[in-house]
C-alpha cells in the first residue's frame, strides 16, 4: 500500500514537473481568459474580448512580449463560460491544467472573479482581474490575485467629497441597490459612509436581479423627498429606473446612477432623460495619460479603438486592455514565464499607462488612482472631477 502511494506520488511529481517544464519552455506566452460571450453578461464579456484583441494585435505586431531578452508571441486562450459561475470554474481548471496558460485573466465582475481566483490560487497561477472592484474579493488572502480597478470605497468617497462641497444643500440621500455583488457593495458603502459626511440616509433598499419594475420603491422614495437619489445596477436596470422616476415625477438635485452614464447605451436608451445624471467610473476616454504601453497615451488608445468600433470605449474596454498591459510589463520585469516570478513582478509593479497608474496594494487592488466623476450634460458625458481633467461644474437638477 505504502509502495503504491509512493509510486502514485512519484508519477504525480513527474507530471507536475513535466507540466512546469512544458510551460517554462513554451515558445509562446499563453494567457487564458474565460469570457462571458453568451448569457446575462454577454455584453460585458464581448467588451472584454474586444479589448483583449486590440492589445493582442498590437503586441504581436511588435513581435510579442520580451521574456528575458527574447521576444515571444502571445497566444490568448479563451472560452465562453456562458455567464455561469460553475462553468467559469471548470474553464479556469482547464486553462491551467490542460492548456497550461501562464496567466489567467478573470471574467467580468466580482462574483466570477472570486470563483476563478480560488481555482488559480490552488495552482499558484497569477490572476489579473480587469473588472472586479469589491473589496470582498481581495480580502480572501489570495496571493496571486491582482485587479486593475480601484476599490469601491474610493468611488464612493470621491462622490461624497465633490457633492457635499459643490452642493452643500444636500442633506437627505435615498439609496436603491441591485442585490448583486458590485451594485450591492456600492449601495452598502454609501449607506455606511454617508452619515460621516453629514448626510441622512432616508431610504435604503435592495432589489433582486431580474426585477422588471421599480415603481413600488420609487413611489416610496418620492414621499421622502430626498436631495440625492442614488441607484446602483446594470444598464438595463438603470434605464428602467430613470424612466420610471420620470413617469412618477420623482427627481432630486442630484441623481446618481452607478455606473449608468459610463456607458453610451445609457444615454442612447434614455435620450433627454439621461440629462443631469451623475456617476463615477474608473476610467473615461477624455482623461489624458501618457503611458508605457503598446499605445503610449489615452488618445492613441481611443483612436485605435475608434478605428475598429463606432462607439466610444468605456471603462471595461480600458481596464481589460490595461490588465493585459500589467501582465505584459510584469513578464518583462520578471524576465521569465514562471508563475511565481510573474506574481512577484505584479506585486512590485509601478507603471503609468493610457489607463492611468497601475500599482497594486497589499491586497492586490489598484488603489493609487483619482477616479473620474461624470455627469451627462447636453447628451454627452462631462468629467467633473478630478480637477486636473475636469470639463464642467456640477449642475443640480432642481
Amino acid at each position, binding site marked *: 500500500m505504502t509502495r503504491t502511494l509512493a509510486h502514485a506520488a512519484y508519477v504525480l511529481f513527474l507530471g507536475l514537473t513535466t507540466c512546469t517544464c512544458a510551460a517554462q519552455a513554451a515558445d509562446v506566452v499563453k494567457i487564458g481568459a474565460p469570457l462571458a460571450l453568451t448569457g446575462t453578461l454577454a455584453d460585458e464579456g464581448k467588451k472584454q474580448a474586444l479589448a483583449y484583441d486590440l492589445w493582442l494585435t498590437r503586441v504581436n505586431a511588435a513581435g510579442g512580449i520580451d521574456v528575458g531578452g527574447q521576444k515571444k508571441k502571445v497566444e490568448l486562450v479563451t472560452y465562453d463560460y456562458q455567464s455561469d459561475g460553475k462553468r467559469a470554474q471548470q474553464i479556469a481548471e482547464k486553462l491551467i491544467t490542460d492548456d497550461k496558460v501562464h496567466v489567467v485573466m478573470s471574467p467580468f465582475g466580482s462574483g466570477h472573479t472570486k470563483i476563478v481566483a480560488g481555482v488559480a490560487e490552488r495552482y499558484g497561477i497569477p490572476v489579473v482581474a480587469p473588472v472586479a472592484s469589491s473589496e470582498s474579493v481581495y480580502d480572501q488572502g489570495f496571493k496571486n490575485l491582482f485587479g486593475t480597478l480601484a476599490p469601491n470605497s474610493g468611488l464612493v468617497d470621491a462622490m461624497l467629497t465633490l457633492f457635499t462641497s459643490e452642493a452643500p444643500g444636500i442633506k437627505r440621500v435615498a439609496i436603491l441597490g441591485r442585490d448583486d455583488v458590485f451594485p450591492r457593495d456600492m449601495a452598502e458603502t454609501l449607506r455606511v459612509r454617508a452619515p460621516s459626511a453629514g448626510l441622512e440616509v432616508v431610504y435604503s433598499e435592495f432589489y433582486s436581479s431580474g426585477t422588471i419594475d421599480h415603481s*413600488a420603491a420609487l413611489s416610496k422614495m418620492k414621499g421622502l423627498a430626498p436631495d440625492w437619489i442614488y441607484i446602483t445596477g446594470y444598464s438595463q436596470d438603470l434605464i428602467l429606473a430613470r424612466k420610471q422616476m420620470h413617469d412618477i415625477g420623482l427627481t432630486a438635485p442630484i441623481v446618481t446612477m452607478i455606473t449608468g452614464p459610463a456607458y453610451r447605451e445609457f444615454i442612447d436608451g434614455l435620450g433627454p432623460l439621461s440629462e443631469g445624471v451623475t456617476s463615477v467610473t474608473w476610467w473615461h476616454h477624455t482623461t489624458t495619460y501618457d503611458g508605457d504601453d503598446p499605445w503610449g497615451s489615452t488618445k492613441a488608445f481611443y483612436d485605435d479603438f475608434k478605428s475598429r468600433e463606432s462607439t466610444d470605449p468605456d471603462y471595461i474596454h480600458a481596464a481589460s486592455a490595461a490588465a493585459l498591459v500589467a501582465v505584459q510589463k510584469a513578464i518583462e520585469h520578471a524576465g521569465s514565464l514562471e508563475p511565481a516570478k510573474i506574481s512577484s513582478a505584479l506585486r512590485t509593479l509601478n507603471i503609468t499607462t493610457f489607463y492611468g497608474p497601475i500599482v497594486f496594494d497589499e491586497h492586490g487592488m489598484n488603489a493609487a488612482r483619482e477616479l473620474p466623476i461624470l455627469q451627462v450634460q447636453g447628451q454627452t458625458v462631462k468629467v467633473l472631477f478630478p480637477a486636473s481633467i475636469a470639463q464642467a461644474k456640477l449642475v443640480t437638477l432642481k
Partner: protein
Amino acid sequence: MDVLQILVNGLLLGALYACIAVGFSLVWGVLNVINMLHGSFIILGGYLAFFAWRDLGLHPLVSLVGIAALLFAIGWSLQWGLINRIIARPVLTTLTLTFGLDMIVYNFMTLAFTATPRRVALDLGVLNISDVVVPVDRIVAMVLAFALTGLLFLVLRSSTLGRAIVAVRMDRDAAALMGIRVDRIYAITFGLGALMAGACGSLLAVVYPVTTMMADQFLGKAFVVCVIGGLGSVPGALAGGLALGLIESVSGHLVGPQHAMTIGFSLMILLLMTRPTGLLGTQGYE
C-alpha cells in the same frame, strides 16, 4: 393617495405581466407545450420594434402590426416544420426541443444585435389623475393585454377556427376523427402565441431596455403568471398577471423591493398546494 398609487402601480405592472403571459398560456393550454422560446420571441419583437423606430422612423405602435404578423409566420413555421414532428411525445420532449430552439434564437440575437440594452427613447407622457400618476405607455400595454386577451377569447368562443382549437385541446384524437386537421391547428395556435409575444415585445421596447438578457426574466414571469392564473384558460393569464402585479407592488412597498419576487413565488407555491388548477384554470391541465 399612497394606497391608490400602489394599487395603480400593481395593476399596470399586472397588465404587463398578462401581456407577457397570454401567448405562453395559449400554447401551453392547447398544445401542452411549455414554449421555452416565448421570452426570446418577446425580445425579438422588441428588437424589431427598436430597429424599425431607429432606422425607418416607425412608431412602435405602427410597426407592432407588421412585427406581430412576422412573428406569427416564424411561430407557424417552427411548429409546422419542427415541433409538430414530436408533438405527441411527452411534454419533456417538446420542452427540450423548444429549449434547444431558444438557445439558437437567443444566441443568434446576441450575435446579431449584441446584448447592449436598447430602448425606443420615446416619451408617451403621463396622466395625472388627482395625484395618482399613470404612464401612458403602461396604459397602452394594459389596453393591448386586454384587447389581445379579449380577441383571443372571442376567437376561441365564436369562430370555426377557435372551436377547432378548443376541440383539439379537449381531445386530440376525437378532433382528428371529426375531420379537424390537428397539425394545422397546432401550427396556427403556436403562431398566435408568437404573434402575441411579438406584439407585446414591440410595446415593451418603449417601456424597457431591450436586451437578450431579459428573455429569461420574461419567460419566468410568464410561467408564474400561468401557474397562478391557471392553465388552459385565456382569462386566467389576465387574472394571474394582475394578481402577481398587485402582490409584487404591495409587498414591494410594505417589505421592500428585495422581497417582492420572493413573496410572489411563495404565494405561487401556496396556491399550487391549495388550488393546483390556479385561479381560473381548467381541471386536467394542472
